[in-house]
């Protein structure tokens, strides 16, 4: 912001930019991107009559009816907990396991390294619906249908390619002489990894973990077809309120608030890590 002022006085600075239209464009984009979500959130706080009216009700008395209905009558909090457990566990496992694979790909020069790296990536290319039927059959045989461990295992596998891909780039950025000097000082490989490399990697690991957690929290296709009652997560639970002839828009709005609240909170708190983390990964790869 200070740069704007200096450009006016400094003689060899570029000509002052006229930014009026830029603000107009960007603010228009912000409105288009935010307003639909805001409107659905507002609907969540309406009563049934206001939500059902044909003309949009911009002014209304907020009520928690829809939330009460979802939480006390529909027991949506159990779906919420399922989603939370699945997202946290699969993030933990995929990051912990994928980290070592990424380390190997970044640090060692072995035969077939590029093939392994490409193969890992192809696993992310498969459309989820394409592997749905085989996975359904496997889960049926292993009695994993409609269980949390089943979903956790599946999401861990789904997120691994992404984790490996992101972290490989980050590991390459860390000079290996830090680890090597620790090992010369008598640390074992694992001690050097834990005490030197891991702390340096923490910001990148955090950024990757955030992304993975968001992807797991949002996953829809597998959750719909592989869970029914015990392990049902938020996305399929919410789907139920959007079908049928008369949709209760305020209930749908409240459900949208519940599923997005953790994401929005998280992103607001972690905004900086999120953006810088992704940027680094892009630039390096």
């Amino acid at each position, binding site marked *: 912001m200070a740069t704007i002022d200096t450009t006016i006085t400094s003689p060899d600075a570029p000509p002052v930019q006229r930014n009026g239209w830029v603000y107009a464009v960007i603010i228009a984009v912000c409105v288009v991107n935010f307003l639909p979500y805001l409107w659905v959130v507002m609907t969540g706080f309406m009563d049934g009559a206001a939500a059902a009216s044909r003309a949009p009700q911009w002014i209304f008395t907020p009520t928690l009816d829809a939330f009460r209905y979802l939480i006390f009558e529909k027991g949506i909090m159990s779906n919420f907990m399922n989603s939370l457990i699945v997202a946290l566990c699969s993030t933990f496992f995929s990051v912990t396991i994928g980290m070592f*694979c990424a380390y190997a790909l970044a640090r060692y020069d072995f035969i077939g390294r590029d093939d392994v790296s490409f193969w890992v990536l192809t696993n992310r290319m498969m459309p989820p619906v394409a592997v749905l039927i085989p996975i359904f059959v496997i889960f049926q045989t292993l009695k994993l249908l409609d269980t949390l461990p089943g979903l956790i295992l599946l999401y861990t596998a789904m997120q691994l390619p992404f984790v490996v891909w992101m972290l490989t780039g980050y590991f390459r950025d860390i000079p290996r002489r830090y680890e090597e000097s620790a090992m010369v000082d008598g640390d074992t490989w694992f001690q050097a990894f834990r005490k030197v490399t891991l702390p340096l990697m923490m910001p990148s690991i955090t950024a990757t973990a955030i992304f993975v957690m968001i992807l797991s929290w949002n996953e829809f296709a597998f959750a719909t077809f592989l869970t029914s009652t015990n392990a049902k997560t938020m996305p399929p639970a919410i789907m139920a309120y959007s079908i049928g002839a008369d949709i209760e828009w305020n209930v749908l709005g409240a459900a949208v608030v519940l599923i997005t609240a953790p994401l929005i909170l998280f992103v607001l708190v972690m905004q900086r890590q999120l953006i810088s983390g992704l*940027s680094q990964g892009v630039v390096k790869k």
Partner: protein
Amino acid sequence: MIHAEPSQRLPVHPRSRGMLARFGPSNRKVFPWVLMAPTLIILFGIGIYPFLYSLYIAGHNVILSKPYLPRIFVGLYQYHALIQDPEFWHALRTTLWFTVQAVFIEFWLGLGLALLFQRSLRGASVMRVFILIPMILPPLVAALIWRYMFYPGAGLVTYYAGGITRALGWGEIPFLSDPTIAFQTLIFVDVWEWTPFMFLMLSAGLASIPRQPYEAAEIDGASSWRVFWTITMPLLRPAILIAVVIRTMDAFRTYELIVIMTRGGPGNATTTLNVFLTKTGLEFFDASKAAALSLIMMMIIIVMSFVFIRVFRSRTEAAE
């Protein structure tokens, strides 16, 4: 290939004997495989096994709703049947057209936005968060939001747009019930949802471009249009590659958006390969046909990303 030499001289730790000597960190040939083993095993279980199973099913005749039928080996019949099925070609065309349009629009809009943010703006970080919102929302929620927006007799867009068009005497716009308009509506929502992604990736790419070429161009008095095409675009190529490849792969398999907003309709106007696959496998229970279709899709995606990577690599090398 980048940095292998110094660590070859690592002292072998006195404690590493037996198992550790054979598979441990000092064995530079085997140790990376030990580190990768858990990942590879899990990916094998959830990636390769379903793939092989799909191959097996696609070579047989399996109807999920009739498990009592004997499984007959049918060779390449399922692929052959698909290739002769006009529904398949329609779905393929729809998918490709959807992907090309969506990614093209998202790329240019995202690039434009990223370039605007290159200027020093007040409140840039707050505006950035607002712009990123659609991408942070679950795809399911984005689809539900717009289904609501376009819902006849309830949505914001239908109400206000309908007000305008009724005043002009055109009646309401059939956003989701006219085949052509429904398809464009889906592209609009995809653009709304994923332009922020392009914006984020391309912003990061722009931030990593060094200043010197621009300073040189300024001395030469090059026009900003020329600077954009001769400096910004070539230097942005790596970021463009990643952003476009990821977006293409994801647009190609868009699922939630289409299933929630149109279910592939009206008719089959918005039936993409993914929706066609779900219908075949989970509504008509023709597992074999669905498996063959999924393998064809997989091939298309791999070929596409290979071509992309080749083209961009050769161009980048030529530029250097």
